[in-house]
């Protein structure tokens, strides 16, 4: 691709589009989707990419020890109560608090891992953290100490979900990821076998009390944490998004640089969470995680009562059953990895369909097992079901992490954990009711209801995952394209909206809107009522977040940036109608407009005085409530925002609506002055005459789409478009 210094923005956009199409297919291959199912053995893949097995082993071992404390506590709680003289209610309460800490911990951990290569360090620190907490549990002597230990343990162990998966994703190439995540899952499940064995060994033949058990387990955790000390964070998207960026750079003959100008627009924590939840695949799969969390209640709790009530299994028998349950899951995960890998490589959508079918089959088997009159048939059915359900987690984890940029993976991992926890809470209520009415056996059958919903949710994501993956690819490519074009001297548009879709609930109002504003330009945006003009302004100012497409400001992606951060970048909107706070005085309104510059009071005072100079009428009524102002005065007050904030881009919605022509003339003159001062202006108008008298560049919108983009004089010749506006204007009796 060749670029010319100072190339026009639309030329730049065309270049980006053509490059995007050329790179997308290659990018999908980079993400491991090659369209065929053949996979090399894992060892060969690792050897070809010079990647060691160490990260998955180290993180997997951490994943095992992560669950030691929780398991030991659940088994040894009666002993702790008897030793310390603490009622079981106290232990249950602190355990619940620890569970809560474990539930919320992934979010701050995602926040911590957001910047820089910290994930490996955080894995090690949290691993050492829970090792020390497990160790310390052996020394507690009061309920307060138990609470402290469990809270810290919950915070550290809960963090694993936000760190381990994303770190593995970046540590291994895409063609190994299903197998790596399955192996990690197998490590995690094996703790269901190892933990009981260790507790039985330490408390039995070694004759340790509960204190000794915790110290023993804590030491194991510590050794494992120290084993993981060589873990290194490979950086976000080392094997995928960074490779895509490198492809773009190679296309431009450029080399990797670190001077990304994205510091001021990189998404904050909640912005990333919101962005993650806007992706349809994520919404479906995260809802699927909620259902899995809900199912975990009967599978972890009521199954024990079921075995007791229906099959009269003793505690030892139930322990054996759970050991078997975990063991078959370990085997299933190790076997399934390659099959899942093949499916993903051929068609990620097929993998999600398969995941939905697997869950459906799994819960049917549980239901049938719950009704089985033969013990061993029940054991077999539950075992096969356990295998099926175990394979879901790596697949679903891979799905949500494949459709977002690598930097957001800790966040999506955290959100899946939290949604799973919420599902557990709902499940506790739901299945408690079922248990009261139908007994533990009834809960085993009842899993089929939420299970079927979950299966449909997960399967339905198969229709979305390809589109979302392509969108993620496009975002990355576009971002790097623009980086390269800017570096090569091309001038990006001040504002560039590309393919913007927006919906109010289920009603889509914008359809693939492309909208560009150059530095210092005054653009008119025309269209009838309901065309989507105000909505596109909301998308630009950040009040509305698009469901698809991008918004770039001076080349930087601001699509998911909060409105107040866009204000700081220099984007200001004057909303349509009465853009003032009616219950505040004029002076208070002006001060509220300057909220973002409030720290510099002197500058704000000067700006307010300037507004009074520009609008003497406002000075006269400075202490009047804004609601008592005339329509024209209210628009003057609204327009004052531009003088206070001095934006780079001013979005004005329906300035002339309902005003006398003489007032409109005065206001338009001011808009012209603001524009002449270097501020780019987007003027949304229904009055064609007004808009086109001011702007050289015009857009015309109809039914949520841009129908015209060009010079204002050319629009005047498009009677087919303008007729609707004129007719509507006549009907409304307005000035056209």
């Amino acid at each position, binding site marked *: 691709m060749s670029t010319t210094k100072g190339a026009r923005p639309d030329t730049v956009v065309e270049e980006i589009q053509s490059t995007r199409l050329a790179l997308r297919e290659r990018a999908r291959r980079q993400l491991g989707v090659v369209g065929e199912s053949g996979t090399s053995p894992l060892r060969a893949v690792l050897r070809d990419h010079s990647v060691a097995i160490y990260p998955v082993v180290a993180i997997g071992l951490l994943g095992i020890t992560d669950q030691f404390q929780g398991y030991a506590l659940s088994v040894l709680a009666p002993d702790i109560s*008897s030793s310390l003289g603490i009622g079981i209610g106290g232990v249950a309460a602190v355990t619940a608090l620890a569970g809560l800490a474990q539930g919320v911990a992934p979010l701050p951990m995602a926040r911590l891992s957001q910047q820089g290569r910290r994930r490996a360090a955080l894995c090690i620190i949290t691993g050492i953290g829970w090792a020390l907490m497990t160790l310390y549990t052996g020394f507690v002597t009061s309920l307060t100490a138990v609470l402290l230990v469990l809270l810290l343990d919950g915070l550290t162990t809960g963090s694993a979900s936000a760190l381990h998966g994303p770190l593995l994703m970046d540590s291994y190439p895409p063609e190994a990821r299903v197998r790596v995540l399955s192996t990690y899952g197998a490590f995690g499940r094996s703790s269901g076998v190892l933990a009981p064995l260790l507790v039985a060994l330490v408390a039995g033949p070694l004759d340790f009390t509960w204190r000794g058990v915790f110290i023993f387990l804590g030491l194991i955790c510590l050794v494992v944490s120290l084993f993981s000390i060589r873990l290194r964070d490979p950086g976000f998207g080392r094997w995928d998004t960074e490779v895509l960026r490198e492809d773009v750079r190679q296309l431009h003959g450029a080399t990797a640089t670190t001077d990304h100008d994205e510091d001021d627009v990189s998404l904050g924590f909640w912005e990333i969470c919101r962005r993650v939840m806007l992706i349809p695949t994520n919404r479906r799969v995260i809802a699927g995680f909620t259902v899995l969390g809900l199912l975990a209640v009967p599978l972890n709790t009521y199954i024990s009562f079921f075995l007791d009530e229906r099959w009269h299994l003793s505690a030892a028998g139930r322990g054996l059953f759970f050991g078997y349950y975990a063991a078959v899951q370990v085997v299933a995960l190790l076997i399934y990895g390659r099959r899942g890998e093949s499916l993903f490589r051929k068609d990620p959508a097929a993998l999600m369909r398969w995941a939905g079918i697997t869950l459906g089959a799994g819960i049917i088997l549980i239901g049938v097992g719950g009704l089985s009159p033969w013990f061993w048939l029940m054991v077999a059915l539950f075992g096969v079901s356990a295998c099926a359900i175990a394979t879901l987690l790596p697949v679903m984890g891979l799905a949500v992490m494949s459709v977002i940029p690598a930097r957001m993976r800790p966040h999506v991992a955290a959100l899946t954990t939290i949604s799973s926890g919420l599902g557990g809470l709902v499940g506790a209520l739901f299945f408690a009711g079922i248990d009261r009415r139908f007994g533990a056996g009834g809960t085993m059958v009842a899993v089929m209801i939420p299970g079927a919903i979950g299966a449909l949710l997960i399967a339905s994501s198969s229709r979305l995952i390809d589109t979302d993956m392509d969108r993620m690819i496009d975002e990355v490519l576009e971002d790097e394209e623009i980086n390269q074009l800017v570096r090569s001297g091309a001038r990006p548009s001040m504002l560039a909206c590309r393919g913007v879709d927006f919906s109010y609930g289920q009603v889509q109002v914008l359809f693939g809107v492309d909208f560009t504003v150059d530095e210092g330009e005054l653009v008119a945006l025309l269209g009838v009522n309901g065309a989507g003009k105000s909505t596109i302004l909301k998308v630009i100012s950040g009040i509305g977040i698009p469901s698809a497409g991008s918004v770039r400001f001076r080349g930087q992606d601001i699509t998911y940036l909060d409105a107040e951060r866009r204000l700081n970048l220099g984007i200001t909107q004057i909303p349509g109608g009465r853009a003032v706070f009616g219950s505040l005085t004029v002076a208070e309104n002006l001060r509220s407009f300057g909220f973002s510059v409030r720290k510099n009071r002197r500058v704000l005072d000067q700006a307010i005085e300037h507004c009074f100079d520009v609008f003497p009428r406002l000075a006269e009524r400075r202490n009047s409530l804004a609601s008592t102002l005339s329509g024209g005065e209210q628009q003057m007050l609204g327009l004052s925002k531009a003088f206070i904030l001095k934006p780079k881009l001013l979005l004005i919605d329906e300035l002339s609506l309902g005003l006398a022509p003489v007032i409109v003339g005065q206001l338009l003159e001011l808009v012209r002055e603001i524009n002449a001062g270097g501020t780019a202006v987007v003027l949304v108008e229904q009055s064609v005459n007004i808009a086109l008298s001011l702007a050289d560049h015009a857009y015309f919108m109809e039914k949520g789409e841009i129908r015209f983009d060009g010079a204002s004089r050319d629009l005047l010749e498009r009677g087919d478009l303008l007729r609707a506006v004129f007719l509507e204007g006549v009907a409304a009796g307005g000035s056209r």
Partner: protein
Amino acid sequence: MKLKVAGFALAALALGGCVNLSNLQFRGDHRLHFVAPRADSLVRLPLTLRWTMSDFDVVPPNAQPPSAHAGYFAIFIDRYPVRPGQSLTSVAANDPICAHHPGCPDAAYLAQYQIYTTTTTSLRLDAVQPLAGNNDRRQTHRAIVILLDTSGRRIGEVFWSISFDLNRPTI
């Protein structure tokens, strides 16, 4: 990150303050062995719990200065015992009526809570309260035996427990 480090430091301090290693028990204590009933067996009332005790002088309250090697037994049925170092009076700590009666809690008061003391190695139970909220006919009960020194305070955190089943009395 600083907050996290500070949190860890705080926790370490808090925990450090709680720990007195000499009182903690890390290995099993096998000085007491239950003789009757058989663990997890179905029994009938009246029931006599029997056990053997070694390396501990069983003496009445106030018979000699308090020490960890002499004292008597407290038995808790379906209850968790008092904390190490506490006496049985802590059972009535939140009972204002008991607080205004000299000598309370006495044996009769404690028996209401299924707490008993003995200077022998057996305890006869004429009644065991059904488990609250459990309507099963066969109910599993748990007896926990702890050691009290001659001043009536719990010795260490050692305890021994045994479970037995009783059929719920029919009305």
